[in-house]
């Protein structure tokens, strides 16, 4: 136990110190270089640790994945684009792609919108920390816990028998027959998305709340003193200042919805038309032992975010122009 305590202490103090020392050292070295070189080299020095990690843990495996996607099941023979063709022609895939689009739209709008709403509302009350903690709880509870929780929300018993699911219990209280939520498409995909929204709204809220706090009060005060009402203050000052952060949160949620896996896997495993692309990947890779096909799915996922990245690049250029 002592060993570990020491190691933990070493890491906790050591890593930031080492990075700090690294920057300090390189700054000294850069001082020795001519001005011209200094400005050009410095960014890369600062980026080096991050780029190193990213290359090893994300870029290198992706290149390997791309390579695998052209090989057969045993990763020995070259099969060209067979894996891609297989993926794109299975009926399951088309359903999965359709569902991912639904996920993308609903999850992004609801989670970002919800997070923004909560961040703004609780900003004005004294019990803000408590309220934010409560919205945050779903995120803290892990997917295992969330799966069990929503099992009890969606549980179904035949009409006439005592209901064990909360939603059906509520329906029963108002005299409506219970609904088997997870069985009927496309309502079941929406139900799964609701679970994801429940989890991720806290995430959006935390980030947006942080950004909200960065808006100087003097600015808002000045506007109010000038006679603007709350809505005008929001639209004229708050929203524009929050826009970059909203873009960050929205981009993250879009990518999350493309990668959506845990909720679907735990609750339905893609049955009843709830399949999503990431679940297909998991099945092909780990259940069916088809690394080639799974790799093709992964590459398709990567291609799917290119539009997202393009939008972000444009947004960046615009932002830079203003800054």
């Amino acid at each position, binding site marked *: 136990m002592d060993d*570990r305590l020491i*190691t*933990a202490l070493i890491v*906790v103090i050591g*890593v930031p110190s080492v*990075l700090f020392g690294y920057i300090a050292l390189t*700054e000294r070295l850069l001082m020795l270089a001519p001005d011209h070189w200094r400005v*050009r080299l410095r960014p890369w020095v*600062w*980026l080096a640790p*991050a*780029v190193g*990690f990213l290359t*090893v*843990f*994300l*870029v*290198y*495996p*992706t290149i390997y*994945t791309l390579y695998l996607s052209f090989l057969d099941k045993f990763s020995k023979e070259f099969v060209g684009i067979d894996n891609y063709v297989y993926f794109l022609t299975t009926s399951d895939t088309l359903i999965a792609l359709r569902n991912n689009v639904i996920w993308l739209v609903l999850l992004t709008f609801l989670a970002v919108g919800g997070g923004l709403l909560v961040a703004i509302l609780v900003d004005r*009350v004294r019990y803000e*920390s408590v309220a*934010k903690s409560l919205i945050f709880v779903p995120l*803290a509870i892990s997917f*295992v*816990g969330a799966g*069990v*929780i929503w099992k*009890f*929300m969606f549980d179904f018993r035949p009409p006439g028998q*005592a209901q*064990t699911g*909360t939603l059906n219990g509520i329906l029963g209280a108002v005299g409506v027959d219970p609904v088997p939520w997870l069985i009927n498409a496309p309502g079941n995909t929406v139900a799964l998305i609701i679970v994801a929204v429940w989890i991720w709204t806290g995430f959006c809220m*935390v980030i947006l709340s*942080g*950004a909200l*706090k*960065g808006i*100087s*009060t003097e600015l808002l005060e000045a506007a*109010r003193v000038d006679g603007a009402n709350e809505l005008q203050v929001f639209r004229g000052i708050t929203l524009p*200042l929050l826009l*970059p952060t909203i*873009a960050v949160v929205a*981009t*993250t949620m879009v990518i999350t919805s*493309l*990668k959506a896996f845990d909720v679907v896997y735990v609750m339905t495993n893609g049955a009843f038309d709830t399949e999503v692309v990431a679940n297909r*990947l998991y099945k092909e890779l*780990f259940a069916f032992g088809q690394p080639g096909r799974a*790799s093709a799915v*992964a590459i398709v*996922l*990567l291609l799917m975010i290119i539009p997202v*990245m393009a939008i972000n690049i444009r947004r*960046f*250029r615009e932002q*830079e122009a203003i*800054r």
Partner: protein
Amino acid sequence: MTAITQPMAIANRRRGPRLGRIGLHLTIGILLFIWLLPTLGMLVNSLRPAADVSRTGWWTALGSPGSFTTENYAHVLAQAGLGQAFINSLFITIPATIIPVAVASFAAYAFAWMNFRGRDALFILVVGLLVIPIQTTMVPILRLFRDLGIAGDFLTVWLAHTGYGLPFAIFLLRNYMGGLPREVFESAAIDGASPATAFFRLALPMSVPAIASLVIFQFLFVWNDLLVALIYLGASNAANLPLTVLVANLSNSLGGEWHFLMAAAFISMALPLIVFFGLQRYFVRGITGGAVKG
């Protein structure tokens, strides 16, 4: 102290019409209730015997205090290796939170306030890496670790979580740092401060809310992670596995005995919530406000 209390004092004074305030509290109340309802249901169910849970809804137990039991929690707390697993989780999570936040902050500052060719393209590439599914990276990285001889070390998990967590960390921090007032950095440059000084003395302190958010998320994701620890530490590394593995094993292979999962989920959730609550004080208005003059 005064600089921070003043903005808050102004906020409190600005109460607005009573109807507006009541509407506000009501809306928040309804939202909170909707959010809490699912969790409340599970909390109540975790205090009931398993046979009851399968047969009647949790709300029926609210009227009869006699039907509650703490046996689920007792069973979880009595698990052999719970304390060890908890320590393992801490040992995995704390470094795996600190390293990515540290590395990302330097990179984010470079992206935000240094100009260089290919900056935007590289940044977008980094953001794009967010979409890579972790499962596809495991085999090649495991082989790499094995060749390096460090397979099964805690180091591998820390490094892996850093690699996986960096894209989002850089994305978030760069956005926040980029939003800091340009004038601050310009006047620092005029005063002859190096970028390093500007970073440590200005950018970092002003980015505290974003860094706090990041710490919360990274801590949470690593604390609740099962897969990365299981694969990189090795599933046969029983003594070193985190809490998540122990919790997942409370239910049997057929999916039965999930009632222990409920109790365990609540127990395991306590620490991230404490971290969240504890870091709330960094989400206070006025931290950047102080740096801007007029």
